[in-house]
């Protein structure tokens, strides 16, 4: 019965085959697919060998070739794992791709460094652009100001301004000496207070009349040496510099007499 049943099955199978050629084609397709799978598997193994097993074997060889204690070898392994590399070091390559970091967070040190570098470049560029923008704004402002300055004024206004400046000079309200302008006694006081030492004060505020006053009564020329000698003696007598002008009759009679008395005491000593 078993044999009969097997024959019936084979006959049924034979009945399903319509053409012998079709069967041959299917057989060829199956065989070609098996050959493709074999080739693909070889390539996969080759890749696995060069990219993974090879570097791992190399790394293992290098790690194991280190002479020393087990702790030193473990140290070498640790260094190799944390090292960032893209050529030959498997762990370094993984780390470079962002899959392994020293503290387990996303992003490798190299990635972070690259990001920092990029941010610094962007910030620098931003600074440059901001500076350029400010410069352009200033140029625009100055251009407007120049236009305002160049606006032609009325001829009458020009004439009035010229007369005003002339009057300012003529009425003695503003006296200009060098770069300084004095308009009243307060200005002089501020100048002396800020620019002159206290022992000098107005000792050297000379005008033409003061200079003529320093000439001797008979008009004879006094030599420079004599003047310097007189100044030296006055200093030796303890007179402050501002008091030296008393000899030119600039001060009151009281001051002049005081100065002469001090000189007499000095000579007597």
């Amino acid at each position, binding site marked *: 019965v078993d044999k009969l049943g097997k024959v019936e099955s084979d006959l049924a199978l034979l009945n399903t085959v319509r053409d012998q050629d079709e069967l041959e084609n299917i057989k060829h397709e199956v065989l070609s697919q098996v050959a493709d799978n074999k080739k693909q598997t070889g390539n996969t193994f080759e890749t696995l060998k060069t990219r993974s097993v090879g570097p791992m074997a190399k790394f293992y060889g290098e790690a194991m070739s280190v002479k020393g204690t087990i702790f030193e070898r473990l140290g070498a392994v640790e260094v190799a794992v944390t090292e960032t590399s893209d050529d030959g070091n498997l762990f370094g390559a993984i780390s470079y791709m962002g899959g392994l970091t020293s503290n387990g967070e996303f992003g490798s040190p190299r990635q972070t460094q690259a990001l920092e570098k990029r941010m610094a470049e962007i910030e620098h560029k931003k600074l440059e652009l901001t500076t350029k923008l400010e410069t352009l704004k200033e140029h625009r402002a100055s251009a407007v100001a120049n236009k305002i300055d160049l606006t032609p004024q009325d001829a009458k206004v020009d004439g009035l301004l010229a007369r005003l400046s002339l009057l300012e000079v003529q009425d003695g309200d503003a006296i200009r*000496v*060098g770069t300084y302008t004095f308009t009243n006694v307060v200005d*002089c006081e501020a100048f*002396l207070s800020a620019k002159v030492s206290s022992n000098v004060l107005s000792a*050297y*505020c*000379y*005008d033409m009349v003061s200079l003529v006053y320093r000439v001797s009564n008979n008009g004879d020329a006094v030599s*420079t040496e004599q003047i310097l000698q007189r100044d030296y003696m006055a200093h030796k007598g303890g007179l402050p510099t501002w008091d030296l002008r008393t000899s030119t009759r600039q001060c009151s009679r009281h001051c002049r007499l005081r100065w002469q008395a001090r000189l007499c005491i000095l000579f007597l000593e």
Partner: protein
Amino acid sequence: MQQALPAPLAGSAVHPIPGVKVFKEWDGEDGVTGKRADVTSSIANTVQALLSILIRELRGHPDALAVFQMMILQGQIHWQAYASFLSNTRNVSFKQCEDEKEAWLYPCEVGKGVFEEALKVRRVGGERSSTEKHTLQDAARMMWGALRCYQLMETYVLCGFQGHPQLAGYSIGHLFRNRVTPKHIEVVKTKVSSI
């Protein structure tokens, strides 16, 4: 800052500038003799001495040094201009009127006016807040007086002295007293009445 004419030009004689009553005393016209040469030489020595003292005293105060130096040097220039004005104007007047005395009197009238006007602006410097002490306020007043005189002399020199309105009164007064005769006055009166 209490009197108009300084000592070398002052005196008791009745003259606008008693120190130099005649032109010969003022200018020997040789560049050496005369009060003009003496005073100019003395001022030059004084300026030289003052500048050397100034540099010593105001070491470390360049601003004050510059201002005081300029005032002193300008004062010397003003004197030279004033002296030249007196001599030149006298020579011009002498050519006009050929009167020795009157020719010298005219610049002296204007010259005296210069010192009188200077006294008006310098008087503020003579005020004192204390007889014992020279205060900063006193110094400021002296400086202000000197500066006003400096400014006044600048304008006088610029106008050639006799061209300045403030000195016009002195020159007109002198010309009216010395150059105008009664006959001239009668002519003017006639003309005015006819108008």
